[in-house]
């Protein structure tokens, strides 16, 4: 009886040992496959592949204000983006322009954008009624001084495009 028990134990033991070796060999086979198949490696060498790196057009990098060739933008200064922002990232400073026929007209003086507070949630772009701002595909934002992250989005001397209300 004791002999039978020993045989059973040895049988199980040897089965376990060989099963264990087989399982380890299966894993090593997979590792060896990738060791010999270099074409299946998908690692990207980031700083070296800057030229070929393409980000999709919807990527949310930072808020910019597009200007056309006449240095004109589409921002009316309605402050919809400022109200939509959850973090107080955007501050619209308005001024009054005097039109040729002598009337006062509200326009933006500065659109101040704090990149350091921005979480790229896209709510300001959704809120803008005149498509004046959009997301840029930049992502390398590190600078040496925090003050450089506070940006004025409208270019100096720019004015509003004709026909945008």
């Amino acid at each position, binding site marked *: 009886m004791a002999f039978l028990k020993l045989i059973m134990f040895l049988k199980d033991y040897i089965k*376990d040992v060989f*099963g*264990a070796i087989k*399982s*380890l060999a*299966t*894993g090593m*086979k*997979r*590792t060896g496959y990738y060791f010999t198949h270099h074409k299946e490696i*998908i690692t990207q060498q980031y700083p070296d592949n800057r030229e070929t790196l393409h*980000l*999709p057009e*919807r*990527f*949310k990098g930072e808020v910019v204000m597009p200007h056309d060739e006449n240095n004109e933008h589409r921002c009316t200064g309605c402050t919809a983006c400022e109200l*939509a*922002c*959850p973090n107080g990232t955007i501050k619209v400073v308005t001024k009054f322009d005097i039109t040729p026929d002598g009337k006062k007209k509200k326009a933006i003086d500065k659109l101040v954008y704090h990149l350091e507070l921005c*979480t*790229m*949630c*896209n*709510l300001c772009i*959704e809120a803008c009624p005149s498509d004046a701002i959009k*997301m840029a595909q930049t992502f390398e934002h590190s600078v040496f001084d925090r003050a450089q992250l506070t940006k004025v989005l409208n270019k100096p001397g720019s004015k509003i495009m004709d026909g945008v209300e």
Partner: protein
Amino acid sequence: MYRETQIVSDVAKTPLTGEGTFTINVGPQHPATHGVLHLVITLNGETILNIEPHLGYIHRSIEKMCESLTYRQFIYVTSRMDYLSAHINNHACALCVEKGMQIEIPSRAQVIRVLMDELTRIASHELWWGAMAMDVGAFTPFFHAFRERETINDIMEETCGARLTMNYMVPGGVMYDIHPNFQKRVKDFLQLYKRKIHEYDELVTGNIIFQNRMKGVGVLTAEDVISYGCTGPVARGSGVSSDIRKLYPYEIYDKLEFDEVLETAGDSFARYLIRLREMNQSIRIVEQLIDNIPEGDFQAKTKAVLKLPKGEFYQRVETARGELGVYIVSEGGTTPYRIKFRSPGFSNLSILNHMVKGSKIGDLIAAMGTLDLVIPDIDR
């Protein structure tokens, strides 16, 4: 004998202070705790007598912050709770606001939302699988998992504009329509996944060292799981049915064909198998929907300023970790009066002491890995 893990059963009677016991700290800066979790562990030799998690290292007072944000604005903050299932968190908040406003969501938006949820769930489980293998000492599986996860992240980046904190779900639908390439790229991903999924079993599941470290370790009975309020794969690993998608269907989950994965062993290996098989169920859902995205609007027409009527609203969803509940108390204004999130991570962490008490300290990391803790979700 070599296969059994010895669990000291009379650990409750051992005093926590006195000769032979000592205390060690794991974390808050420890690679195995997946974040800033601080565990104060009382040991007797190698046997764990007590574990006390210390929280608060990444507390950002998200619930209080939401009280000063409008119903459109507060959704983006919830991406920062459980950052691995950011879509599903946003989904829960959007659903809760829609429930209060009684907004009808277009069917196209519903399908897109469910697709994104399931892709997020797969991505989250992929990352967990890699991190789990790394916890028990295998480094290569992490890169195998990231190969598939990266594909999902690229899909997200193309359609939502971000890889992790998308803020894609808004009250009334989704923020913008899917990218023209979306369907093709998801199909490519499905092919890649099916071609590569057997590697997961070859590398980790069948590995004898991995099995010996997982089987019979961290056993939870169904009673334990219910009394501690665990949900998600932790509950389903012990045989407790807790899939919110089946029990309280939201969106179009009641029309979809998928199984709730259940295991009865209750040990670490059962929870491991649950997550692997759950990925296959998510793949099934994606396959059903990807060719059947209905035409129409992706967003319902809503007012510029959302105002919830006075009252209380609650919505629960199934994230990759378990049940997430969003509870909004409204006074009728533009901002919520109070918001409470019932996060799955907090309840799952609370069972840790019960789970590993009496085990050896070597089993702690392996057992804790199967809980799939995301620390910002616990602290909020």
